[in-house]
Structure formats: structure tokens, C-alpha cells
């Protein structure tokens, strides 16, 4: 019993978040929805504590992860990286909610509660090797996201977005569960470590062995599970919900979906693919079928980035454009997974960190801009550059980063990704990605052009200093990180994550 309580320390960050969610909900009930800013501050404090705990955990963890709760929960650096990511994006989204002028009118206590709930889901989703808990975490994240998407109950667009999100979410969850049940039937285990490499006497059969015997069921099972993840990170052709939901949801929620939720989805995807296929030459047959999945992911990456970018080209609404741009970026991140090396995984993780800066910034700009004009179309941006120079220049930095140009972190992230893909023999994919970057330049800079090169239209002179400050900080971070300022911690974190994952995957069997 004592040992069990000791092990509870491993999930201290999750416990803090859970307590925070209950606290926020109760306080809101007691306050009857008044003075919601205090709840926001409380949330920030809780997130800071969680982040601190995570950093402590990072320090304590070695290359190798550790497990608790009868092997259900896996604590390793890979998961901790994504938890830090989630906490970081949650903190910025909380600030956005607090500063967003459009959000004030709605009772806001549940907003924070749901966001925290979604994070708890994301936490469990990224820290388990067990498909069952992974599924539960994913569902918790999704359920909270559905409610958040429909948070503006009065708005038809928001309600429609929530409904679409639920229907497609339910569908993809069903597909994924079916895949998981097939995998269980094939291997006799839900543990990804055992599934990847089952030792004698464990009672399980490794997937590679099953693949040799009956490739078709294995392929179907794996693809069904992958489809579930692909839905979460909006990879073509599982992306149809993305533009509608992103457009209809309140913008801070969209920000969370595009950054926090997507990163958690990628974490699960990378863990799944890594455990089953990234075994760095343990077994020749595994390598062979790992290459196949890499090639499939490469094709998905190519289709996703191309379709995402081409669709973004003609969007009139900035919000919709950013939705398609986030699809395209899912394609870039997928390149890292497709290279099927720990170098590629690290590159994907680093790129997600870059994605964090530039997309939080771009969506923050969108919130600012909606606050000023009440619209989200690119034409209404006219003259922003002259009226709100600080915010507009910050946006230019984010656009430069999203395009992948120096001296921003977007360039650096893409450089590592491309390098990893070339090392993995995917030069053709890098060429496609490079062409896509050029295409994206066109629609990203349409925004800059609209802001600076066109005559201003009359607008309400309104300023949101808090939001402008956050954007400014994000822009500075984007540039500094691109110049290599935070390279050592960031690269270190991203590099050590897959290392822990990989050792865990190969070690699981000998346990």
C-alpha cells in the first residue's frame, strides 16, 4: 500500500490538474459566474505548479521511463515533453480567454474547467503504453473539446461546429476502438511494448510475428487505429471536420484544438508507431514492415501538406486559412514520423515546439484582430500594419515562421525535419515539402500585404495592450529560438524524448 502511495507521486501533475479542475468548478458555482478573472488567475497558478512538477519529473527521469498503476501509466521523458507542451499551450490559451474581449459575456467558469479537463485527457493520452488508457485519455480530451467547440450556445456556427465535431469524433473513436480490439485479438495484449516485441512466456504474440502469419488483419487493425490518430491531428483524408470546427468554435478554443490537442494526438501517434515499428534493427522482419508503414506515412504527409496548402490559398477568412494551414503543418510533422528514425521523431517534436510558438502567435493575432474589427476576413485587415504596428509586426514574424524562413524557429524546425527525412531516404518527400513551403508563402504573405500595402479602412480605434504584449513576447521567442537561443534545452528535450521511448519499446519485452 505504501509503495502504491509512493508511486502516486509519479502522477502528481495529473493529480494537481484534477484538483484544479474541481476547485475551478466549485469556485465558479459559489461565485455564481461573477468575477471570472480570478478563476483565470487561479488556473494560471495551478498550471504553473503543474509545470514545475513536470520539470522536476524531467530531472528525475533517466533515459528510461518508469511505470505505475500496474503498468497502465508510463512516465517517460517523451510523455513529459508533451505534457510540458500541453501545460504551456494551456497557459497561453487561458491568457487568451482572459484577454479576449468577445468572451466576456459568457459565463466563463466552465470554460476553464473544460480546458483543464481536456488537458487531463491529453496528459493520460501521452503517458501510457496501454491502448485502453490511451483511448480513455483521448475520449476525455475529445469530450471536453466537443463542449468547448459549442461553448457559444447562442451562436449557430458554434453549435453546428460542436455537432459536427461530436459526430465525426464518435465515428473515428468507433473506428479506432475496432482497430484496438482487432489488435488485442491478434496479439493478446493491450500493452504497446509487448505488442512490439513479446518475449517467450509473456502470453502475448508480437505484431511482427502475426504479420508474417496473416498480414491482412494486421494491416487492417493498424490502419484503423492510425485513422483514429490521423483524425485527431487532421491528416488528409481524415481532416474534413477541421475547417468547419475551427471556424465555428470560439477562437481561443480553436487555438487549443490546433496546438494542444493536435500535439497530444501526435504524441499518441508517435508512441504507437514508435513502439510497434521503430525498433532500430532489432529484428529484420520488423524493420521490413516498419519501412512500409514509414512509406505510408510519407504518402499521407505529402497528400496532407499539399491539399492543406492548396486549400488555404483561396480562403477569404483568416480563421479558415489558419485551419487549412494547420492541416498542412500536420503534414510537415508527419514527415518526422515517416522517417522512422529517432532522429526523425526528435525533429517532429522540435517542429511541434516551433509550431507552438508560431501558431499560438497567429491565433492570438486572430483574437486581437477579431476584437478590433469583429470580423475574421483577410480583407478587413487593411491598414492594420499602420494602426497596430506592434501586433502587425509580430504577426509578420509568425507568418515568416509559418512559411519556414530564417531567422525564425520555423526555418530551423523545417531544416531539422528535412535533414531527418533526407537521412531516411525520403528526398522526394523533402522536395514536395519544399514546394509546399513556397506555395504557403503566397497565402501567408497575402495577410502581410493586406496589413501593410493597402489603404486602411475605418475601424474602431481599440487597443488590447495585454494581448499585444503576449504576441510581442511570442514573436521575440520565435526569432530568438530561430537564432538558436533556446536551442540547447529545446533540442535536448526533443532529442531525449524519442530516446526514452525507443529504449522503453525494446525493453518492454524483457520485463
Amino acid at each position, binding site marked *: 500500500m505504501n509503495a502504491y502511495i509512493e508511486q502516486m507521486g509519479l502522477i502528481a501533475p495529473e493529480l494537481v490538474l484534477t484538483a484544479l479542475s474541481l476547485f475551478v468548478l466549485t469556485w465558479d458555482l459559489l461565485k455564481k459566474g461573477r468575477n471570472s478573472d480570478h478563476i483565470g488567475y487561479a488556473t494560471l497558478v495551478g498550471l504553473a505548479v503543474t509545470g514545475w512538477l513536470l520539470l522536476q519529473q524531467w530531472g528525475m527521469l533517466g533515459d528510461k521511463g518508469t511505470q505505475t498503476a500496474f503498468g497502465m501509466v508510463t512516465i517517460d521523458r517523451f510523455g513529459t515533453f508533451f505534457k510540458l507542451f500541453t501545460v504551456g499551450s494551456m497557459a497561453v490559451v487561458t491568457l487568451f480567454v482572459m484577454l479576449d474581449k468577445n468572451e466576456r459575456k459568457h459565463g466563463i467558469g466552465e470554460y476553464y474547467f473544460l480546458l483543464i479537463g481536456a488537458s487531463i485527457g491529453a496528459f493520460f493520452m501521452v503517458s501510457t503504453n496501454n491502448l485502453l488508457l490511451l483511448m480513455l485519455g483521448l475520449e476525455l480530451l475529445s469530450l471536453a473539446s466537443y463542449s468547448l467547440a459549442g461553448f457559444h450556445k447562442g451562436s449557430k456556427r458554434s453549435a*453546428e461546429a460542436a455537432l459536427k465535431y461530436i459526430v465525426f469524433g464518435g*465515428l473515428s473513436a468507433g473506428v479506432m476502438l475496432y482497430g484496438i480490439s482487432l489488435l488485442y485479438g491478434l496479439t493478446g495484449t493491450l500493452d504497446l511494448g509487448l505488442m512490439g516485441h513479446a518475449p517467450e512466456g509473456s502470453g502475448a504474440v508480437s505484431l511482427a510475428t502475426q504479420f508474417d502469419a496473416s498480414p491482412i488483419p494486421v494491416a487492417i487493425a493498424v490502419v*484503423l487505429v492510425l485513422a483514429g490518430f490521423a483524425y485527431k491531428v487532421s491528416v488528409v483524408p481524415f481532416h474534413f471536420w477541421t475547417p468547419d470546427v475551427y471556424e465555428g468554435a470560439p477562437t481561443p478554443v480553436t487555438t487549443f484544438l490546433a496546438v494542444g490537442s493536435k500535439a497530444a494526438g501526435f504524441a499518441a501517434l508517435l508512441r504507437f508507431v514508435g513502439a510497434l515499428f521503430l525498433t532500430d534493427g532489432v529484428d529484420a522482419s520488423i524493420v521490413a514492415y516498419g519501412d512500409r508503414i514509414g512509406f505510408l506515412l510519407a504518402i499521407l504527409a505529402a497528400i496532407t501538406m499539399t*491539399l492543406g496548402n492548396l486549400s488555404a490559398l*483561396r480562403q477569404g477568412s483568416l480563421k479558415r486559412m489558419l485551419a487549412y494551414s494547420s492541416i498542412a503543418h500536420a503534414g510537415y510533422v508527419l514527415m518526422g514520423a515517416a522517417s522512422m528514425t529517432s532522429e526523425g521523431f526528435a525533429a517532429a517534436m522540435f517542429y511541434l515546439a516551433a509550431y507552438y510558438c508560431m501558431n499560438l502567435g497567429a491565433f492570438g493575432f486572430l483574437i486581437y484582430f477579431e476584437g478590433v474589427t469583429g470580423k475574421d476576413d483577410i480583407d478587413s485587415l487593411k491598414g492594420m500594419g499602420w494602426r497596430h504596428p506592434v501586433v502587425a509586426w509580430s504577426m509578420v514574424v509568425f507568418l515568416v515562421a509559418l512559411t519556414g524562413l530564417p531567422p525564425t524557429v520555423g526555418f530551423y524546425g523545417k531544416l531539422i525535419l528535412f*535533414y531527418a527525412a533526407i537521412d531516411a531516404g525520403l528526398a522526394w518527400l523533402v522536395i514536395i515539402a519544399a514546394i509546399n513551403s513556397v506555395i504557403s508563402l503566397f497565402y501567408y504573405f497575402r495577410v502581410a500585404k493586406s496589413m501593410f500595402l493597402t489603404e486602411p479602412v475605418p475601424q474602431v480605434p481599440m487597443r488590447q495592450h495585454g494581448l499585444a504584449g503576449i504576441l510581442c513576447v511570442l514573436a521575440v521567442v520565435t526569432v530568438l529560438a530561430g537564432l538558436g537561443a533556446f536551442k540547447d534545452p529545446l533540442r535536448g528535450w526533443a532529442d531525449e524524448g524519442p530516446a526514452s521511448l525507443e529504449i522503453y519499446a525494446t525493453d518492454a519485452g524483457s520485463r
Partner: protein
Amino acid sequence: MDTSTVSLANELWFVPFLPLLGALLCGALHLAVLRRRKAGGAEAPLQALAGYVACGAIALALGIVVSSWSTLLGGAEAIESGTWNWIDAGSFDIGLSMVFDRLSSVMCLVITGVGLLIHIYSLGYMKGDPGFAKFFAYLNLFVFAMLMLVLSSNLMGLFVGWEGVGLCSYLLIGFWYEKGWPAEAGQKAFIVNRIGDACFLLGSFLLIRLFGTLDLSDVGASVQAVMGEHPGTIALAALLLFGGACGKSAQFPLFTWLPDAMAGPTPVSALIHAATMVTAGIYLLLRLNPLYAAAPSVMLVIGFVGALTAFIGASTAIFQRDIKKVLAYSTVSQLGYMFLGLSTGAWAAALFHLVTHAFFKGLLFLGSGSVIHGMHEEQDMYKMGGLRRHMPRTFITFVAGSAALSGLPLMSGFFSKDEILAMAFASGGLHVALWLVGLAAAAMTAFYTWRMVALTFFGKERFDPEHVHPHESPATMTVPLMILAVFAVFGGVLNLPAVLPGAGMLHHWLEPVTKLGDEILHSTGHELHHLSALSEWCLLGLGSLIALVFAHKGFHAYTSGTEADARARAERPDAVGFLEEAWRIDSTYTRRIVRPIKLAAFLVASVVDQLAIDGAVNGAGSFATSLAQRLRGLVDGSVKNYALWMGAGAAALALSWILI
């Protein structure tokens, strides 16, 4: 590099970053000026402050450069700053540090020294311009980029500076963009340089392939190991990088932007388009001297291009009416000499001419600016004349600069040009032909220089005394002129010919940098031949004679006025027109290249883009949106459709996994 002779000093980072800080401050001051102008307040104090900030930043940078230089004089081979690891991706990394060695120290002294004088001069020249603070912001930014260019230890850092100076050049050429044509000139400079920069990039890619690094000292050190195996690739990389140098240093066939660049304010022409930026190409070749030494065929190409450019530039300058155009073509021509020097492996001679040229051409541009300023923005020499009485200080310094440019005996330009020509002569073979071309260009140089002096300062006053009252410029402008004049006259002592006492200072100074290149030249039998004392004296005498004779001819023909030109035009209209328009190279480009490209662009924009690209894009975009729109409010249907797509996608994935 041997560590015992390299000392570490992180204050080197301040050398480029002080001007950057100055640029940022001046930019902020410009914004403050705009705000105050809107409010109707007095903007002059802010403008003046920007000027002082900019000059102060350069002066501080100069201080650090001089103190670091004294360390070098104390025997250190190089000073290196700590490394900033910019990019680190797998097997490829780019670490950047500032290296102050014997070559970059000379460049830094010129950039900050001449740069400071030009900054001070600009205080007077730009006085009252509404964009005063902006001008200094750009000027400081330029100095930052130029210092990055010469101090970077890595070719990628050099390229950042290379592009930075290109950007500043564009901004400053088009500084008076309201007039229209300066903006076009800026664009032309930028676009022509694109061609060169594309070559530069391709060349550096080849270097990565050859050496796996872009670190300049590593590249230089590994040339000898690689040259036996890949002589062709080395030659191609060297040729491509020389293409980049052709763009930046205005060599044939990419020189056409430089004359147009005179649309910028005159201090810009002096700093960027005479003293510093245009010499970046020479610096690049000097820095990569082992690479070029290993590619003798490319060296010959460089010699041909240099000599041809020297000849075209000099012959075009003869019939120009615009005083700045004369100087612009003269710069093109002098840069050609430097490349000619490089092609013989006379590294020090090229650098020597670079330095003296910075002195005398900077001086001449500033002097012409003083004339233009005093003549109320008149640049046509046909409307000048007799100005020596009105602007005595400008006149005397301008004559000093002209003496140096035309290579009158004992002036700085005499020694530097003579050394290049002597080296070409000594190299023998095809280089003797190039020597003859250079000699002809030298004769024309003396001619057009003294024609310019005569037309501007001598003869009758051809302007309208009712409206134009020429006046001497203020001290902020004339004092820099005097300082530069001293250097232009006496700069020759830096590297006297071997037959004189105290000879070859710069040559010895540069030896550690060019050691590798010299070794390679020696091993391939292309080393520099030394002339006997007698032939050296003969060449010095020949150079003096030609300079004196043609200077005299040019001066005498034009002291009386512009009749000589009129006579030439009447007798040989075709030839004069041909020369005036720089051998009609620019108009040929317009006819053969620019117009067809514009036509093709129009076709692509109106046909290919509209039909093919837009069709594909609209198709892909509407693919998703039409589905969404058709089903809006019809949630039932959309689920079916989306589910169909997802199912089909999953099925396709599963199938392809099994089949491939």
C-alpha cells in the same frame, strides 16, 4: 590555425553590432520624428541626434577595430571571438564567429575609417532632408552588414552580410523614391544582383558537397587534399562564386546596375558603390584564395573579365556628361583592375588597389557631392566650369583624388595600379595581352579624369549666374575631404614596389592569409614571377609616361569648354554614341532578355496561371469546401459523405500497405 597565435576576444562581436544598435536607435528616432511632424513639433533636434548616434556608433566600432589591430601588430596572427552555434542539424552545422585576421583587419579599417568620414560628411550633405534619421539608420545598418561580411568565419555568415549590404544598397539607392527613377534604379540593382547571388548560393552548395563545411578556414585548409580528386568541381564552385562576385562588384556582364545606382544620395555612392560594398567580391576571392589557386582556368576567366570590364568602364567614362556617371564607370573600371590583379595571384596587389581606391574614389565621390551641393543639385558637367574660384577646398582635394585615380607618379593610385599591371606583365602568356588592355584602360583613365577636372573646375562658367550661386560646402563636408586627400596622396607607402626602400609592407602583412594559395600556385607551377629591377623601373616609367601624357591631353582639350566633345560627336557620331551608352550592353539586355522575359511572364500570368494553376488550386480548394457547403444544415448527409471518405481512405491505406 595555430592556437598560440590566435587570441580570443569576445568584444569583436561589438564591431558589427554597435552599428546595428545605432541603426535601431536611428530607426526609432525616425519614428519619433514622424510622430512629432504629425503633431507639428520641432523635429530638427531629433534628426540631429540621429546623426550623432550614427556617427558615434561607427566611431566606437572604429575604436575597437584600431585596438584589435594593435593586438595584431603585436604579433598575433588573428583574433577570434567565441562561436555562436547557429544551426546544428545532424551531420551539418553552422557555427559563426568573428575572425579579425590580417585580411579582415584591413577591410574593417577601411569600412569603419572611411565609413566614419562619410558619416560625418553626410551630416552636412543630408542636412534638412526630411528622411535624415532614416538615412542614418540605413547607413548604420549597411556598415553592420558589411562588417558581418568581412568578419564572419563562415561562408553562410558572409552570405548574410552579403545579402544585408544588398538590401541596404537597394534601400539607399531608392532613398529618394518619390522621384520615381531612384526606386527603379534600386530595383534594377537588386534584381541584377539576384543573378549573382543565385550563382553564389549554388557555389556554396558545391562547397558543402566538396568539403562538408562552410567554415572559411576549414575550406581553405582542405583544398589541397581535394584538388587532385575533384578539379572540375572545384573549378565550377570557384566559377559560380566568382559569378556572385561579378554581381556585387559590378563586373561584366553584370555591371549595368552600378551606373544607375548613382540615383542614390552621393555619400551612398561614396560609401557603398565605391569604397566598400562593391569590393565585397574582391574580398570573397581573397578570402578563398586557396580555392582559386587550385582552379587556374577560372583564374584566367577572372583575368579576362577584369581586363574587359576595366576597358569597357574606362572607355565609357570618356564621353559622360554627368559627373557621377564618370565616377561610376570609373569605379567599374577600377574594380576590373582588382580582378585582373587577383587573376595573376597577386593577392596583395588587389587588396592594395582596393584600399587606395577606397581612399581616392571615396574622396572623388564626396568631392563631386560637394560640387553638386554647391551647384544646387546640378550634376551635368556641361553646366559647370570655373568652379575652382568658388569652391577652393573642394577643388584642391578633388585634384588630389584625380591625381591618384589617373595614376600620376608617386600618388597612391600610381603604385597600386602599377603593381597590378606589373604582375600581369610578369605572369607572361595570355596575361601579357591582358596587360596591354590594362595599359590602354590606364591611358583612358588619365584622359577622362582630367577631362572631368577641366570641365568642372576650369574654363568659362557655363551656368547661369543669375540663378546659380556656387558656394563652398560647410566644414563637416570639407574636413573629411581633406583627410581623405592626405590618404589618397600618400596611401602608396602601404605597398611600395620592390625597387624602392620599405617595399611590400602590405604584401608581407597579408602573407599568413595567402600562404595556402601561394603554396598551391607554387605546386602547380603558376607562382608569381618576379621582375628584375630594370624591368620594374621600365614599367614604372612607362606607367608614369602614359598617365602624364593622357592626363595632359584630357586636361588641355577641355579647359576651353565642351567643344572637343561636340567635335568628336560631329565626326564620329556612331562611335561616340556606342561609347556613351556603355557599348550598348544595357540596351541589348533590355531588348534580348528583359522584354522576352516580360512577355513570357505576361503569358504565364494570363494563360498558364489563370487556366492551369488556378484551375488546379480552385479544384483542390473546392473539393473540400464544396462538400462542406453542400451539406451545411444537412448533417445527416455530411456524416455519410465524410464517413465514406474516411472509410475509403482507410481502405486505400490498408490495401497499399499490403500491396507495396
